[in-house]
């Protein structure tokens, strides 16, 4: 904790519903790629219903951190507890966690050989063992929610980037996750498509989804985040409510970063 | 079969050595000629006049879609009917080179086509002539990109040179046949020669990797290497 700026030590404002305990808890998490120390002593407690935006320069470890939360990457030290289940090498538990945690990727990673509808129903059918008819209904429900039900029978390659990312969000939602992770969901998109994806994410936030979002969309952070985290060189440098974070950054590196991405 | 039955084979080491030398010579000469001619053909098939393009395309398709054994028979036994009489070694070299050129052309062409068009435009905008742009700007990264595929193809040519024994070129597998019929140790002779080929293939691949690092990737190893 010694690395944290003073403001991070203050108790951040929590949403009222957070009383039921932590959704995600990272305690003293360390990770190395060979010699390279990617994550240094990460401590983070995410409450239920809380929405956190993580920003920082590339290579700061922000993506790695959220990829550790559903075990796309393994951490070597410390503990990660998701929804009361600690991540270990026990494959059953990893599966349990992955069922509860949805993820959206920078490059969407839709399955190109399946239609949009099949992309959405795949996991409910094979993981949740849902009958196909119910899965189809569920999928159409979420496709309407992300406002592209008419694309159900097309293939991912026929959709625009923004549409693909909305499908990816709907695909994750079909598993009824308790937590959603977003790994730079808008950074591979053309500027005119960023808005439609952000709108989808905002409406998700309004419904009380627990969200961890790596993004540089500071407008989005202001609008929906309970806390904003700044990471650099594998450490959490600063963590605060959005208002305070943007108007009064404590740490030099945060100031520099903010001036680079905000100052035109 | 036991260890002593290999002794007969090893007694013929001088002829094995001669065969080895011939195989190495055939491989190196045809590899060099094939890559050079293949590069020229790739240029011709992309930038040459229309008639040349069609000719090269036809040549490449024909030689990639017929067996090497048939090609070597045609060149050695068939061409004399047209008055072109080649001795076995020359015929073998011609066959290997013509065959490799077709494959090399296709490999290099694929590498060139994967080079962004902007590269050629940038070179032209700097005032380079088309040939200069091709050999100085387009070709080096294309070679980097396809060097692994080229390495595999050259190893295939090394192994295909075994078929030259069928027109009585005294290379390794020809010597294997000779030793086999002299000693009646068929299996042992072929085992020994197969192991030599395996060693040659491993060595040749290593050598080509070295050549690639030294001359192909150079100091601008940004593309093509994974």
């Amino acid at each position, binding site marked *: 904790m010694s690395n944290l700026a003073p403001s991070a030590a203050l108790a951040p404002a929590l949403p009222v519903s957070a009383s039921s305990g932590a959704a995600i808890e990272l305690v003293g998490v360390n990770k190395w790629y060979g010699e390279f120390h990617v994550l240094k002593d990460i401590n983070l407690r995410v409450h239920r219903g809380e929405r956190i935006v993580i920003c920082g320069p590339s290579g700061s470890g922000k993506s790695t951190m959220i990829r550790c939360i*559903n*075990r*796309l990457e393994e951490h070597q030290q410390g503990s990660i507890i998701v929804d009361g289940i600690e991540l270990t090498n026990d494959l059953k538990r990893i*599966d349990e966690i*992955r*069922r509860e*945690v949805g*993820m959206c*990727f920078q*490059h969407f*990673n839709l*399955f190109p*050989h399946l239609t949009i509808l099949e992309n959405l129903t*795949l*996991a409910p059918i*094979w*993981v949740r063992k849902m009958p196909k008819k119910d899965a189809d209904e569920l999928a159409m429900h979420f496709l309407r929610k992300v406002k592209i039900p008419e694309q159900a029978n097309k*293939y991912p*390659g026929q959709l625009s980037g923004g549409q693909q990312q909305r499908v*990816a969000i709907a*695909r*994750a939602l079909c*598993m009824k996750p308790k937590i959603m992770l977003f790994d730079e969901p808008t950074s591979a998109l053309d500027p005119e498509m960023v808005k439609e994806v952000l709108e989808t994410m905002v409406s998700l936030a309004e419904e009380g989804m627990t969200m961890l979002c790596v993004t540089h969309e500071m407008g989005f952070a202001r609008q929906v985040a309970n806390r904003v985290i700044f990471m650099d060189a594998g450490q959490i440098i600063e963590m605060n409510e959005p208002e305070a974070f943007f108007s009064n950054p404590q740490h030099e590196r945060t100031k520099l970063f903010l001036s680079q991405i905000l100052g035109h | *079969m036991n260890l002593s039955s290999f002794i007969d084979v090893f007694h013929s080491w001088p002829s094995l050595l001669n065969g080895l030398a011939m195989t190495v010579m055939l491989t190196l000469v045809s590899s060099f000629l094939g890559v050079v001619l293949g590069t020229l053909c790739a240029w011709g098939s992309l930038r040459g006049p229309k008639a040349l393009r069609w000719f090269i395309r036809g040549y490449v*398709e*024909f030689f*990639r*879609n*017929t*067996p*090497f*054994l*048939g090609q070597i*028979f*045609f060149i050695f*036994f*068939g*061409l*004399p*009917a*047209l008055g072109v009489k080649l001795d076995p070694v020359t015929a073998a070299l011609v066959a290997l080179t013509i065959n490799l050129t077709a494959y090399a052309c296709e490999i290099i062409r694929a590498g060139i086509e994967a080079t962004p068009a902007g590269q050629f435009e940038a070179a032209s905008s700097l005032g380079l002539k088309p040939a200069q742009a091709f050999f100085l700007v387009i070709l080096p990264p294309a070679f980097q990109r396809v060097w692994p595929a080229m390495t595999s193809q050259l*190893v295939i040519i090394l*192994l*295909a040179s*075994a*078929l030259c*024994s069928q027109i009585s070129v005294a290379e390794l*597998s020809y010597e*294997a046949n000779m030793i*086999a019929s002299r000693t009646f140790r*068929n*299996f042992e002779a*072929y*085992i020994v*020669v*197969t192991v030599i*080929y*395996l060693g040659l*293939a*491993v060595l040749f691949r290593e050598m080509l990797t070295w050549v690639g690092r030294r001359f192909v990737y150079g100091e601008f190893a940004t593309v093509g290497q994974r």
Partner: protein
Amino acid sequence: MNDFTTWDVFRNLLAAVPWTIYLSLIAFAGGAVVSLLLLSLRFAFPRVAGTPVRLYVQLFQGTPLLMQLFLVYFGLALMGVQTTPLFAASLCLSVYSSAYLTETWYGCVLAVPKGQWEASSSLGLKHWQQMLLIVLPQALRLSVPPTVGLMVQIVKNTSLASIVGFVELTRASQIIANATFEPFLAYGAVAFIYFVICFSISLCGRHLEKRIRI
């Protein structure tokens, strides 16, 4: 002395075409079965089976098919197995093809982007489900062009069966060349026939490739 017309040469060569095709089909089917077995082993037990499978591939890709053919032919005889040229050639070509098919198909599975594995993991799919539902269907599409290329190689490789005395196209052309004293015509005609067979396979492959692209 020469009573053979060009048509006679072609007619006799065409009679040998079924044997070349037959041998090619055996080699491809046999090679595919062996390589699917090897690939299943390699993916099911990557630690244990990885190295042996790699060595198998390198062994058969690093030695001439001609030597393999002789080894099989004389090796079987040495073991006291009654063998025919057809059997020896089929066995040898199958094994040889399996090495190339294994290498190629393994590459196709690896070529499926990492993001596909990650996305399906994050949805909670089990390893075999990821393989069966997500990765293999995509690898199958990627494998069409190189597999067609290998089929052409296999057809051409069957010409080596002539060396152990099996009468397919190449052997037929040798017999005709010797009988007619017209090697130019005989070897030219056989090259043309091979070209027609192999080029049609390539064209079918290109057509298929266009159809499966999405």
